[in-house]
């Protein structure tokens, strides 16, 4: 399944790249959302193998975490990444909205005044 999921990661990144190359602000943001999904899934596959149905919890009966359980560390990293990304997505949303408002267009090619000579 890791192989299939690797392909899925690839499609997420490909979609993200394509969307980010569009001119619409909305597509740009969607592209970034896909990018973060791809990253999260990629991180997820970097753990100690992909395990079906055995989350990293201490078994109540035995009092120990099964060694075969999924890797908890990369899950913790992904959680951090998800939350950070949440903040960023919100920020970009608000920023895109305000830029959209200030420029009067959602075409990124209309937002060239700051740096074009």
């Amino acid at each position, binding site marked *: 399944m890791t192989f299939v999921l690797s392909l899925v990661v690839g499609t997420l990144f*490909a979609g993200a790249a394509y969307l980010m190359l569009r001119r619409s602000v909305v597509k740009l943001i969607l592209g970034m959302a896909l990018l973060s999904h791809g990253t999260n899934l990629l991180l997820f596959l970097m753990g100690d193998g992909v395990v079906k149905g055995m989350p990293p919890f201490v078994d109540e009966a035995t009092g120990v975490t099964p060694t075969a359980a999924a890797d908890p560390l990369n899950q913790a990293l992904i959680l951090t990444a998800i939350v950070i990304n949440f903040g960023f*997505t919100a920020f970009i949303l608000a920023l895109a909205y305000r830029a959209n408002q200030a420029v009067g267009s959602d075409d990124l090619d209309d937002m060239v005044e700051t740096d074009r000579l």
Partner: protein
Amino acid sequence: MLTAIVLSMLALAPIGLLARYAPRPLIGWVLGLLPLAAFVGFAVRAPVVLAGSVLIETLPWVPEMGLNLRFSLDGLSLLFALLVSGIGTLIFIYTAYYLAGDPGMGRFYVYLAIFMGSMLGVVLADNVLLLFMFWELTSVSSYLLVGYKHDYADARRGAQMGLLLTVGGGLALLVGLVLLSNAAGSFEISEIIGAGEELRASPFYTPALLLIFLGCFTKSAQFPFHIWLPNAMQAPTPASAYLHSATMVKAGVYLLARLHPALSETPLWTYTLTVVGATTMLVGAAVALRKDDIKGLLAYSTVSLLGTMVLMAGIGGHDAPVALVTLILAHALYKGALFMLAGAVDHEAGTRKLSELGGLSREMPRTLVLTSLAALSAAGIPPLFGFVAKEELLHAVTHSELTPGAGLVVVGAVVVAAVLGILYAWRLVSGIFFGPAAPRKKDHVHEAPLGMLVAPGVLALLSVGLPLGLLPMTSALLEPAVMAITGHAEEVSLHLMPSALSLPVVLSLFAIGSGAALTRFAGQIGAMPSPLPAWLNGDRIYDAAINGLLSSTTAFTRAVQNGRLRNYILYSLLALLAVILTPLALFALGSAPAPDLSNITLPEIVTALLIPFAVLATIRARSRLGAILVAGVVGAMVSFMFVIYSGPDLALTQLLVEVITTIFFLLVFAILPASFERLSKPATRARDGVVALAIGATMAAFTWIASSTTVFPPISAVFKAEALAEGKGENVVNVILVDFRGFDTMGEITVLFIALLGIYAMLRLRPESDPAIADMRGKTTPDAVALGRRGRREMGVAGRDGHDIGQDTVGEPATTAIRSQDAREEI
């Protein structure tokens, strides 16, 4: 002591500001004490040096880089040090008269003092890096002096041209010096000179030498870098006299002389210097003859002389070094005087153009006398010191180490230059003082104040005095200098009258005779149209280069930084591909294991494959909300993957975040145009598609390879083992988050918090909500005003709006736009 002199000159530079307050021109005499003190300091040490010793002082500064405050005083340094401080004293006095009415005189003195300190540093430094440092400082002070009258565009241009050329050459020099030092194993000049044999054999010899030449040629205004010097005449005359004639421009010559013992006597050295020097000599002389502006004329004559000096440094032979030091001294004396006198004329007559002058002999007799003395010396007429120098010069070229053919050419060139020198000297004197008087620019032209003539007077009289009685003393002064150049003991005996009718004497007489004969045609020669095509003009080429630089950089920048985010992203993605795909393809792709497709159930595969479909749908969506929704489904499916593959916390968080983000999206982008416009061309889409596929394939390969190669066991086993015991929790992931790696979580909630602060400010602080600002820009919208008011209310600043806006400082673009607009309208 040397260190003290140099550093105190620099440190005391600010006292020049006194000139703003004290009585003028008396203050010039007071400030003149500064260089005088230095002069005395060197004079006191002169006997020791003349006796053949070298004074060396060392203070460590940055020994790690080889930079030390190491100064040495040998004959060459002494000659220059005396010139710099001596002429400096005269210039300080002269300035007080010349700039008597200028409010910025204090500033001028500061620059002069900095220059003097730096120039002393250049000639005294015994460490290449230290030398370079002072070298650059002289360029900088020259820049400030040339640009002194910076309200004028020409002054700014002249200053900039000089700085760019000299600093550019300086950079080459720096690299060359570092190379040289690396080859010699030391940064101390005395040691480098000692390593001459090794240096000439080193593979770095050629590059180092060429780079050093570049530095020296730019500094000493050698063709084709000479163009900055005439433009530097925008400087007030004292600066021209001091820097651009007597001292700074000789720094390059000084350095060539200084490194002569170590680097000379190779064909590269000899012929480069000979060709460049001779060309400069002739070009300078030829142009000088055609100049209408007296300072321009003097500048080109300086160029010519500098060429001659470089020639002397190059041709080799027993006599060249003697000629070199004699020329340096002679030129400093008469050219310094000529500049100051030209300044006096300019000061009194209000113009520097020969065509607007003439017949001033009656109004300015003293000036006439002094100018004539200096000009005669410049023309090499006996019994002035210039003649002595020219004798030595001709002696040197006839005894050079060049091949006979080359030697003959050089002799011819020197004679031609000598003839031209007589001609432009004649033009100068006759053009100012004799002939028909042009309409006066000023009403009452009269003699310059006596104080203003003191300094040129001293120099002019020295040109007379040195040959008439002081020659032995001069020889004694120059002897150790020559020794420093040749690297071994030399005897110098200058003499006014040749002992025999040797070839040099004949040539000298020939030059004087033909020069005198041609004087009556000097005017015509000067008025001849230039034989060179118009575009072959240094100034034009420089301007064209600058404009070309500006327009090409503008075109390039416009093309690259074109404001389009998608292009930037494209460049970024391509760069990413370059740095990850290359090593992947080269090193890692081979290690990829074969795909393992066992143990996959239908629900897994269906839900996993929905993700690519949803991605594709997001791309192809024609409706925005549709795209947002489909992208949301991607998130939901990813969370489902987390559920299946044992990440329940991930799934929960991911899904919550997904839905809340989608709602945020709806909150601001809810009401949208129904569909996306097709903005990009098909070709663009195809290109982007290729890039996207490449990115996707690369990432898939990375994921597969990295997830299937585990070189080292992950450390996560410890977390599983310790969760309950150490972290008192059964949810290992949560224990990591709040305990084992709680520090990450700390940072992560801070990210959320900061994002909130930023978003809140972005949405509430609205320039267009501010009635005071928005009204002027005509951009107020009721919504924005309401939001701004709401923000202010929430911030607890309601009712203080007016106060705040009044205080809103100009740094903000909003108000500045208005301000500058107002300011323009007032004019």
